[in-house]
């Protein structure tokens, strides 16, 4: 899951600076730290809006609408 097409772990530092890395992306228990860091950059109002948008999109999908 965390390997590139050459079988190299993406959890290690990439060879070239332009390659994406997963180093530091996950906690040991699997929690995605990138999402937490993203949320912490938002204001409380923006965080609530993000949660609301997610619910609205899920609701629209359940109803068969284009969210």
């Amino acid at each position, binding site marked *: 899951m965390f390997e590139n097409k050459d079988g190299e772990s993406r959890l290690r530092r990439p060879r070239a600076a332009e390659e994406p890395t997963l180093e530091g992306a996950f906690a040991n228990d699997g929690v995605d730290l990138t999402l937490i860091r993203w949320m912490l950059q938002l204001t*409380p109002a923006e965080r609530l809006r993000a949660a609301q948008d997610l619910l609205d999109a899920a609701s629209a999908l359940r109803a068969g609408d284009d969210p």
Partner: protein
Amino acid sequence: MTPRFLDLLRALDRHAVEHVIVGGVAAILEGAPMTTLDLDVVFRVDDRNVSRLHALLVELDARYRDPAGRSITPTADRLRANRVNLLETKLGPLDVLQEVGAGRRYEELLPRSHARDVGDLRVYVLDLADVIASKEVAGREKDLAMLPLLRRTLELKREARH
């Protein structure tokens, strides 16, 4: 019905209901990347505030989410008597609680909350550490499942402060 979080918070504010936001919405406002299907608040249990809360719930056409399917409206007496009031309103699910965790009521929670601005609203949100503690005390599987995410969020918040 999908909850309208901001509209629910505005309605609480409009009726001047003294409350602290707890549960999933508190975790979201404090930065946890998650979602929830209801708004949980702990309200001050005194006559004036119960009266305000009741007026709000009348306006929102609130009913208890009754497993038996009965249509039971929240009255002031019920709000005073029931520690947990799980309600459906025209703005979505709203849980009005007298306490969370190990019997912690509004008066105890307010000093452990943070004033947060949500748009033009000032709300009081339970500290994330206390949200975690309340879920640990609740001990339900759905609460325990959220703990790793909430604990990591708290860690990163604390790191960001230093």
